[in-house]
């Protein structure tokens, strides 16, 4: 009977499994296959020669990979610090106001990322909202804080805030108030409570939030292109150039595979560490 149930389960899961396989894996498989083709071909009917990977290694693309990973890591760290108090308040303090805040943050997602970033360009640029008014009132102008690395990090933090905030709030809500109070009663300092009670218990939320923001930020390019004036060429930008102006699909695919491999390994490692069952509120 057990075995029959298992078979039925597999059978029922088959259509969805096939669908997921086709829609998720097939495009990645296609990219993987293109990445081993000789350079500058547009069909998969050639002998694989892995030459695109040699180009990736030989031509300093590691710089773009390193920049993307560095910017993503920095943005994730900043987001963690910025979102912790807010997420804490949402989970433990605000009560009804949490809903207002949630709607407010979610609403920003309804507007395209590019348009929101353009909004920042108009705000920050010379003669824009800030500098324009300041110069109008004081007669003193200053250069726009655009087209550099810090503004790219600001853009990443701004765009990916919701992806850190909500998982973090979820994680913090799992810290039982009793545990904190008990620690207080036993003489723990605030710092000890944060380090030994709250952070470990909220870890699933921290992991999921960090993973989401890091993965998204590592593949981002709009922030660097719009706010940063391409002060940094991100790896996603390189992939786009290879596919379009470069007309070199295998190179673009190889660059994409390198990014997928790095991010994929990181994600799998992090997921293996996080207790997703606990995150979803199920007791194992």
């Amino acid at each position, binding site marked *: 009977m057990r075995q029959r149930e298992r078979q039925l389960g597999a059978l029922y899961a088959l259509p969805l499994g096939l669908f997921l396989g086709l829609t998720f894996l097939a495009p990645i498989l296609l990219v993987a296959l293109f990445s081993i083709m000789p350079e500058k071909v547009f069909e998969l009917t050639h002998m694989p020669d892995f030459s695109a990977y040699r180009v990736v290694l030989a031509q300093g*693309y590691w710089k773009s990979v390193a920049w993307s990973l560095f910017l993503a890591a920095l943005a994730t760290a900043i987001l963690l610090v910025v979102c912790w108090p807010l997420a804490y308040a949402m989970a433990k303090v605000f009560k009804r106001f949490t809903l207002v805040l949630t709607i407010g943050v979610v609403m920003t997602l309804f507007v395209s990322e590019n348009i929101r970033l353009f909004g920042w*360009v108009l705000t920050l640029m*010379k003669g824009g909202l800030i500098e324009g008014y300041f110069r109008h009132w004081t007669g003193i102008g200053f250069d726009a804080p*655009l087209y550099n690395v810090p503004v790219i990090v600001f853009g990443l933090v701004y765009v990916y805030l919701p992806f850190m905030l909500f998982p973090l709030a979820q994680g913090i809500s799992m810290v039982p108030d009793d545990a904190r109070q008990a620690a207080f009663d036993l003489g723990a300092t605030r710092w000890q409570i944060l380090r030994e009670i709250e952070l470990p218990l909220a870890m699933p939320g921290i992991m999921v939030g960090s993973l989401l923001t890091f993965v998204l930020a590592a593949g981002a390019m709009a922030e660097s292109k*719009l706010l940063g004036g391409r002060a940094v060429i991100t790896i996603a930008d*390189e992939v786009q150039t290879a596919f*379009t102006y470069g007309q070199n699909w295998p190179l673009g695919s190889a660059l994409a595979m390198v990014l997928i491999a790095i991010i994929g390994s990181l994600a799998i490692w992090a997921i293996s560490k996080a207790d997703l069952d606990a995150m979803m509120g199920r007791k194992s």
Partner: protein
Amino acid sequence: MTISRRSFTLGMGALGAAPLLRPGLARAARTDELNILCWEGYNTDDVLGPFRDLNPGATVRAESGTSDPDMINKLRAGEVKVWDLINLNQPWARGMLYPEGLIKPLDKERFMPFFEKMTPEYGSPPYPLAFAEDGELIGMPQRYGPFSFVVNTDKISRATAEEQGWKLFLDPAMAGRYGILTYDNWNLIHMCLTADLNPFKPLDEAGFAAFGDVAAQIFAGSKLMSDDLVAMNTALINGEIDAYFTGGTYTASPARLDGLTNIRGITPASGPIDGKGGVVWAELTSLVNNPDPSPLAPDFLEFVQQPEICKAVGFAEGTYNPVAQMGDPEVFAQWDEDELDAIQWDTLEEESANSVEYDSVADYDKLMEIYTSARRG
């Protein structure tokens, strides 16, 4: 003849299977559908509306691309079955689309007469780059424009910019005062010209080295890079930069039509290709080699030669450009004084004379490699 249930189902089955065996027969000719892949302009209501009125019942769709290679990728990815017309810059049509069988020749008898009414550069003789090497007519020219660089003439006078030409961007005093409009294929051409090289001829090792040096210097001195012409014009208007590398009538015209005529496309007075340093582009609209072609495609190509439609194409939302058909007085009469000033009509002939035709870059792959590497820093 009696029809039994069995013979009826058999017949129905055969009827159902027929389309699978002979797809050509099953699909009626696509008289009621036209799909256009184009740069902005051909997709506006001012152009498509009148054509839809002429062909009631037909579904006419147009999608605007963001770059030539993006559009080419669509055809390469199998969308030749979808599109009927493609409009893009001529070197891509001649260099890639036609040799790879993605577009097909036009009927010369039907389309050659239109060249007679075009401006001298395109009409007499008929624009040579509209023809493939085998002599076939592979597309109709319409919009064109000089494309070199753009300055704010309040900061750098037109005379100075034209005289200094590309060397302006190597002047140490210009470091941090210019942007780069990253239309990568154009940047390659312009960086070659800055290094006194002819991008349309194969380069030697010294040439590649010179190109690399110039690319590194130009990237290092730029204040910002963007592939968005509005961002470039905005930075120029608000004083963030005084010039931008790669640009021309196409990019300066929107600001000029808004009254900011200090934003001006510049064509260098001299340069390395037979004394010329500017480049002029022209678009070709070609028939996609669709296995199931729409007869409306050549009709549309003929339709866009009409004076009002020429104007609508040249003055679409976003960018404003001269059209080859302006050689016809009836077409020319469609433009008013401000609009002519926006497209720098007063100097257009002179600028065209100082420019060479945009062509396929001979060492595109190698230069692209050096370019992307220099851009990475």
